[in-house]
């Protein structure tokens, strides 16, 4: 066991899997020599050589397109997109090829690739550096999407992602890259993709969230507990395909549902979760299922971004409204 933060866990896990499986190759902008702008790939080029960990020219479309070809031809590419806001040049590859290769070839060609990128905001970064892409990716059939909220989960989920035979987007909440450390076992372990985790049990209301917000929601839940409101908090962990059973079961128990996410409200991931709750647990509901989300605006520049992102107080207020409905 070693104490690790989220970014050092990503580094450790890539190292672990590169040592175990020589098909794993790691690349992207600034990934090789520098070891990534967040230092997620530090030391890997030195250890495994420039054939297995390398810098690419600046072009996200080529990074993802190349990963497609590599995956078809026997490698297990782990590509880095430097920030989620710079994924868009690769969107054509992602929608037109990454997502559909298995289906188009009726399973003849599959894409065991991982695309890692920092996710979300709240770190006073520059324009375009705070995007949440759950909907933009989650709407496309054939993609798996994972968002860890702790170092421990990050290792188990990233190992699952690399070993998965389908393309997996591994979204790393940049706000918690270095926010805290946790014991992470040296040994091999995986956490299944598609399984949510109940991080706090409660009876009053089901609150689903993921990524950095897990920690803010937990703070809110503690505030509410002091008022006698006992929230159940679920860390969704996988956005696609998400754990429908865990949500439905919890809502049947609590009768109330809140989803909390950074992405904008309209057509955001919360809408999908609420639709599920309406479809599968409608008769159990005692209050309208509710979304606490970003506004339907472009994420402000850093001086104003705190208005966009939710803090524990705002989350607690939103949950309180649902409980007191």
């Amino acid at each position: 066991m070693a104490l690790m933060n989220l970014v050092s866990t990503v580094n450790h896990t890539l190292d672990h899997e590169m040592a175990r499986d020589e098909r794993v190759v790691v690349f992207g902008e600034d990934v090789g020599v520098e070891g990534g702008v967040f230092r997620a790939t530090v030391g890997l080029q030195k250890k495994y050589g420039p054939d297995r960990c390398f810098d690419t020219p600046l072009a996200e479309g080529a990074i993802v397109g190349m990963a497609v070809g590599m995956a078809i031809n026997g490698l297990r590419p782990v590509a880095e997109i430097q920030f989620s806001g710079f994924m868009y040049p690769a969107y054509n590859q992602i929608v037109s090829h990454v997502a559909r290769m298995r289906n188009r070839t009726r399973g003849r060609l599959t894409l065991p690739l991982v695309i890692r990128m920092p996710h979300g905001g709240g770190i006073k970064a520059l324009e375009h550096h705070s995007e949440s892409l759950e909907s933009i990716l989650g709407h496309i059939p054939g993609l798996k999407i994972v968002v860890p909220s702790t170092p421990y989960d990050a290792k188990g989920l990233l190992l699952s992602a690399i070993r998965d035979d389908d393309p997996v987007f591994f979204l790393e909440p940049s706000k918690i890259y270095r926010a805290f450390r946790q014991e992470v076992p040296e040994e091999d372990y995986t956490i299944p993709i598609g399984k949510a985790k109940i991080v706090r049990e409660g009876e009053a209301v089901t609150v689903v969230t993921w990524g950095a917000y897990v920690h803010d929601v937990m703070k809110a839940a503690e505030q509410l507990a002091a008022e006698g409101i006992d929230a159940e908090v679920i860390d969704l962990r996988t956005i696609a395909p998400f754990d429908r059973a865990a949500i439905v079961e919890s809502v049947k128990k609590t009768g109330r549902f809140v989803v909390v996410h950074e992405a904008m409200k309209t057509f955001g991931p919360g809408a999908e979760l609420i639709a599920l709750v309406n479809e599968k647990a409608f008769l159990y509901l005692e209050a309208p299922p509710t979304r606490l989300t970003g506004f339907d605006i472009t994420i402000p520049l850093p001086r104003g971004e705190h208005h966009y992102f939710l803090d524990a107080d705002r989350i607690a207020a939103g949950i309180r409204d649902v409980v007191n409905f």
Partner: protein
Amino acid sequence: MLTKRFDPLKGEMLQIMDAEGRIVAPELKPDLSDERVLELYKVMLLTRAADTKALQLQRQGRMLTYAPNTGQEAAQVGSAAVLRETDWLVPAFRELGAWLVKGVSLEHIYLYWYGNEWGSHFPENVRMLPISIPIASQLNHALGLAMASKLKGEDDVTIGYVGDGGTSIGDFSEALNFAGVFSAPVVFFIQNNQYAISVKRAVQTKASTLAQKAVAAGIPGIQVDGNDLFAVYAAVEEAVNRARAGEGPTLIEAYTYRLGAHTTSDDPTKYREDDEVLVWQARDPIKRTKEYLIAQGLWSAEQDEAQVAEYEAYALEVFRKVEETGEPQLEDFFKYTYRDMPEHLKEQYQEYVQYLEGKVK
């Protein structure tokens, strides 16, 4: 024609003033009055002073992430100096000297890096687009602005900026190709500062110059010493004149160096040697232009010192003003999403205002 005389495929690079400020190609020296050269030099000094202050303020926690220009002032100032007021300037994000020449106030620039959207709201007469962070995407806008000028029968020219890293992405090739096909009045200006964050120029392309990327697009391309104010000016002047005369686009590669960090979040000691930086410090565009001016009797070391001090004080004063007035207004985040605020946004805004008021109570 310079583009005929300096062939990027043969590794020929235009230089008019060497690293010591000596004129090595007098016949190519652009026709600039002494006053104009001094004026441009002063913008270079202001650019550097603005950088120096911004970096200091960032370390004090008063400025947010900032992308410095140090070492690239000649490329920036020399290129924009050719433009007239009605020409368009399309920035990437590291051309402070060019923006100042184009008439953008330092207050706007600081406000942007301070993290306030109003920093991109330039006055009506300033024909410059906002900073573009998604690399190279802006070059197609430059193309479009130029096409509009052409289709409207106006002889305005557009200059679009990009870095060496930006030449690897599709938008760059697409913009060059379109510009060639449509003979658009546009100049594509690459600041090759040798790095895209940590990635060295040699990793971006196997091609020995970036200027030669013009060849496949069928347009003229030229590599110039980007730390030589006169070479930059001369190449851009020729390109702008050609564009204005309806003779189409040009690609210019300014060969320069990023003396500072990529941004304030970057630590260049992780990926480059001090020796390399020293070599380029000796080629500093400000040092070189200053030496030229002093040799011409147009300037002195004392004047220089005083001017730098004055500009640093000015930059600080501008920043103080930004600090005082730069807090964004909540309503603005909602107000500028559409011309008219839709009902659902009004609702989101009002609910949030109510929440904030409730909190104060």
